[in-house]
Every structure is written in C-alpha cells, then in structure tokens.
C-alpha cells in the first residue's frame, strides 16, 4: 500500500495532464476523417451510442454524435469542443473540492461516457471532467469496444501532444476566468506578454503540472458587431518541430493558413477552418505534456 500522498499546494488536485478532449458533431464521419489526417487513429466504438474514440500518442479524442449531446452543445453545424477531462489524483475529491469552491455540478444530461465520470460546468455548454483511472484500468474499457486488431497505442505523428485550449471570453471577463481556473483547478496566469505559437494574444494560464494551457481571448477591438460567444474555440497541439509536423500533415492533405501573421513558422501554425468551424493550432513545445 502506498503511503498517502498529500497534493502539493501548487497542484491541489494532483493534476497530471489531460485524459481526453471531447467533440460533439453532427458529422462524425467527416470529423473522424479529419482527425485521421491529423494523425489520430480510430480505436474503439461506444457500446451503445454514436461515439468514437480516436487516439495518437498520449492524446485521446472522443467524438460524440449522439443526437442528445449534439443538440445540447452544438448550436451550428460545426464540431464543438464539448469537454476536457483532467487527469487528477482522486477524481471524487477533485469534484467535491470544485463544488465547495463554487463550481456547478455537471448537468444530468446524456454524456458520452456512461461510466460515472464526475464533472463540472466549464465555459459555455462545455464540461470539465475529473479522471483518476488512467493507469491500469482504462476508463474506456467500460464504455467502449476496441476495434478488431487495432493498435491500442498508436504513436504520435511528429511527436504531437496536447498543448492547450483556446477559449473566447467576453470583454472585461479575463480576470473572472483567471479566478475560475486558478481557484477550481490551480491554473496560474503567465506574466503578461509571454506567449507561444503564432497567435500571441489574450492571456495564457498554465496548468499546475505545467503540461497544459488555456489561452483566453477577448473579442478584437472595435468588433462590436462580431458574434462572440464564450466557448472553447480550438485545441493547440504541441510539437518540438512545428515545420516538420506541418510538412507531415500537409502530406496527409491538411491545409495550413499560409499568410501573415499566422504563416507556419518554427513557433507555430494554424490549419484552415474545416467543417464550418474546426481548426487546430500547432505550437512549438518540447515538453510532451500529457503524453
């Protein structure tokens, strides 16, 4: 029996990266094809719902096309980031602590996972899950059936790993969201002006384990008439060699935005927008965060 390990104050939940990110979509085949171009492989199918698990390296993506989930999260037809699951030392404890500090418990809706994964409300309609079964017994073993003959641990293309999530916030709400992620999950804002990637704007928050970032982005100045809802906009994938990754992904048919200021560079790159709203950002990162 291990001795009880008290979490360090700087990482109150014992957070260790991201277990999965979940998308909802009305077009699961199209999104699945896109994910495969990005290097993800289909791994398992949900036992009873229209839900698929994709994986590469240390990254899991759940694609949820269950009609109820899609109705709740996706307003338009574009895939929406519906959830992020943090790996923590004790999910029940993390959940209880978040509720005590003012999180909203996840709604009793049909979630992708039937296994009871505790979660709280994130931005917009999204959820933040807490997962602690990420070592031996996988959470996917309960809900999913692995595809026949599939390699359950496909390597990551070009060393891709989770880097972060970009979140839209309303004007003057950055500080409120910093309080939210700091209080409930132990994220800390980086000092002003410290950025990664090709889109240096907004405020960056680093996870207590250092492996994951939220980038909070306010509406552009003078954009009074732009529709700007608070939501998770896109994922950032880290790689030590952005240009190498861009070449590898271009060879698989992905298109990157090739004009300033986001032209692919050693710092980062941005794919074009697919399916009416899906894009991915590459960010230079030598730390394989949650891989």
């Amino acid at each position, binding site marked *: 029996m291990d001795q009880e390990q008290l979490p360090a104050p700087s990482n109150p939940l014992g957070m260790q990266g991201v277990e999965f990110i979940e998308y909802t979509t009305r077009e699961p085949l199209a999104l699945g094809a896109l994910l495969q171009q990005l290097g993800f492989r289909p791994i398992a199918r949900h036992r009873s719902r229209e839900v698929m698990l994709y994986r590469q390296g240390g990254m899991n993506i759940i694609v949820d096309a269950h009609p109820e989930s899609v109705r709740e999260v996706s307003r338009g037809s574009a895939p929406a980031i519906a959830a992020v699951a943090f790996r923590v030392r004790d999910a029940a404890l993390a959940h209880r602590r978040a509720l005590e500090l003012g999180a909203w418990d996840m709604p009793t809706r049909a979630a992708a996972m039937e296994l009871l994964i505790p979660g709280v409300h994130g931005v917009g309609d999204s959820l933040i899950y807490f997962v602690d079964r990420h070592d031996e017994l996988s959470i996917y073993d309960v809900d999913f059936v692995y595809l026949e003959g599939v390699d359950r641990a496909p390597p990551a293309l070009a060393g891709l790993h989770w880097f972060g999530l970009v979140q839209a916030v309303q004007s003057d709400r950055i500080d409120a969201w910093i309080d939210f992620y700091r*209080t409930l999950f132990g994220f800390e804002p980086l000092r002003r002006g410290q950025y990664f990637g090709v889109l240096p704007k907004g405020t960056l928050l680093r996870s207590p384990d250092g492996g994951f970032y939220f980038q909070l982005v306010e509406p552009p100045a003078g954009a009074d008439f732009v529709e700007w809802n608070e939501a998770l906009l896109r994922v950032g994938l880290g790689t030590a060699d952005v240009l190498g990754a861009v070449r590898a992904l271009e060879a698989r048919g992905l298109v990157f935005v090739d004009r300033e200021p986001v032209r692919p560079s050693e710092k980062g790159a941005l794919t074009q927008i697919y399916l009416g709203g899906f894009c991915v950002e590459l960010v230079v990162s030598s730390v394989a965060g949650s891989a």
Partner: protein
Amino acid sequence: MKLEDFGMDTITLAGPIEAKLCAVRDAGFTQIMLSARDLVGHPDGESAAVEAVRRSGLRVTGLQVLRDFEGLSGQLHAYKVDVAKAMLRLAHEVGAPLILACSSTSAHADGDFDAQVADLRKLAMLGVPLGIRVAYEALSWGRRVDDLTDAWALVNAANVANLGLGIDSFHMLARETPLEALDAINPAKIFFVQLSDFMWSAPSTPQERLETARHSRVFPGEGAHSEPLGDLIRGLDNLGYARDYSFEVFNDDYIQMPPARVAERARRSVQWITDHVSRRSLPVRRSVAT
C-alpha cells in the same frame, strides 16, 4: 450625468411587470433593476416575464435580491447555495449582468471573517460561467455586516474579479456613514449604486432602519438628506464611478399610485441630480443658493 446613467427598480412601482416596464420606458428611462419576485410572480410564469422584459427594450441593470447568503454552514449553506443558483439562472435568462446580494441578517450566520469571505468567493465563482457579477451590499440592519466599510473589507479580502460592492445611499444615510468611507474603496470594485432618501433624521435602531427602508423611502431630492446625498453622488462621480445608478425606493404610498406618476417623480429626481449635484465628464456644478 445623463438620463441613461439612471434606472428605476421594479420594487418602487405597483402592478404587473408589463405595467412597470411600460411606465419606466415611457418616462424616458432606458434601464430597469428587476426584482426576482416580479419575474417569478408572473401569472404566466417567469418565461412570460422574461419575454416582457425583452420586448420592453429596456436594458436590465441587474436582478435583486439574494439574502442571508454568507456565514451559514451545513444544510443551511447548501440550501442557500441552491437559492443562489436559482437566482443566477434567472439572471442569466433575463439578461441581467449582475445580482445583488445583501449582507446577512440571519441569527444562524457565523461572524467568522474568513468563512464569510469564502462564501462570497464561492458566490462570485458560481456567477463566472453564466457571465453574472455579484454586487455585495451592506444592509444597515445586517447582523454581522451593517456598513459600507465592513462590506468592503469582505469584498476586498475575497479579491475576485466577479465580486464587487453594491452601495445603497439609504444605508449610508441611515447609518450616517461619513463620506470618507469611500476613500478606502477601490472605485473599480463599486459595481452598482442604488439611490434613495427618506424624510426624517437617521433612525437610531436597526429595527427603525429596516422599517424606514422598507416603507418610507423617497427619491433623491424629495427627502431630508439632500445635502449628504448630493455629496455622496458627487463623491462617487469624482472617484470615477461610471456604472449604473438605480432608484431603490421602497415606499408604501408609491405602490398606491399609478406607475406612470411614480416614474415621473423618478424622472424629476434625475433632473434634480443633474441640476444640483454634478455632471459626468463636466466640471462639478454647485447649486446656487436662492
């Protein structure tokens, strides 16, 4: 200052929400401070009330009022958290950017400073995903917090962006809180200001303050404390306060008068303030004694 800076509270007016909205709008106001009771008491349900607010075209200043939140524990705390969530959801539905929470009067509330701070932080955190700020206000008959300085101490210690102060002139006048109390406050943390006066000298007991506050308030310019009230508004203006003012006038007579007549009085009160107190972004204009 201009008319757009001021709004009325539904609690001042008689009648169903539609009549209140109509009277406020017809008097030229552009914003309304809603009472949750006005919404949920609608005969066709709160969604009909929400629809009426949307249709009115009035901007919603905020939603009031969450009572007795801080300092509770166990079951009582859990119960109040549920109440707070219901109010936040309602605020979200009706497009209110803030809720007003007033200091606890509960005999069951703990006076422990840190516990109260933790509760207010929690309330503020609950508001974040819904985009709703929390303005915390000292009731002059509050059990643990009964003046501006105490309320500010909690808000300041909580130190979260989503929590700020609500200032109600009534409570400052009733407690004869010196204007200097404002000096200690970070003006950016004043989220909301409610204005009213009353017609006699400061009541001496909490019970008298409560009675006056609930039944006998009047609009600024109509009461016995025009000078200190003017000084307060001027003081806030000088601090750079640029958010909303609303008339929080509980008055037993006004809820026996046609809403349009009462809204006219509110409109005259705006005139009194702009004539006698100050003008935003213009040099302060003093009243000339006649």
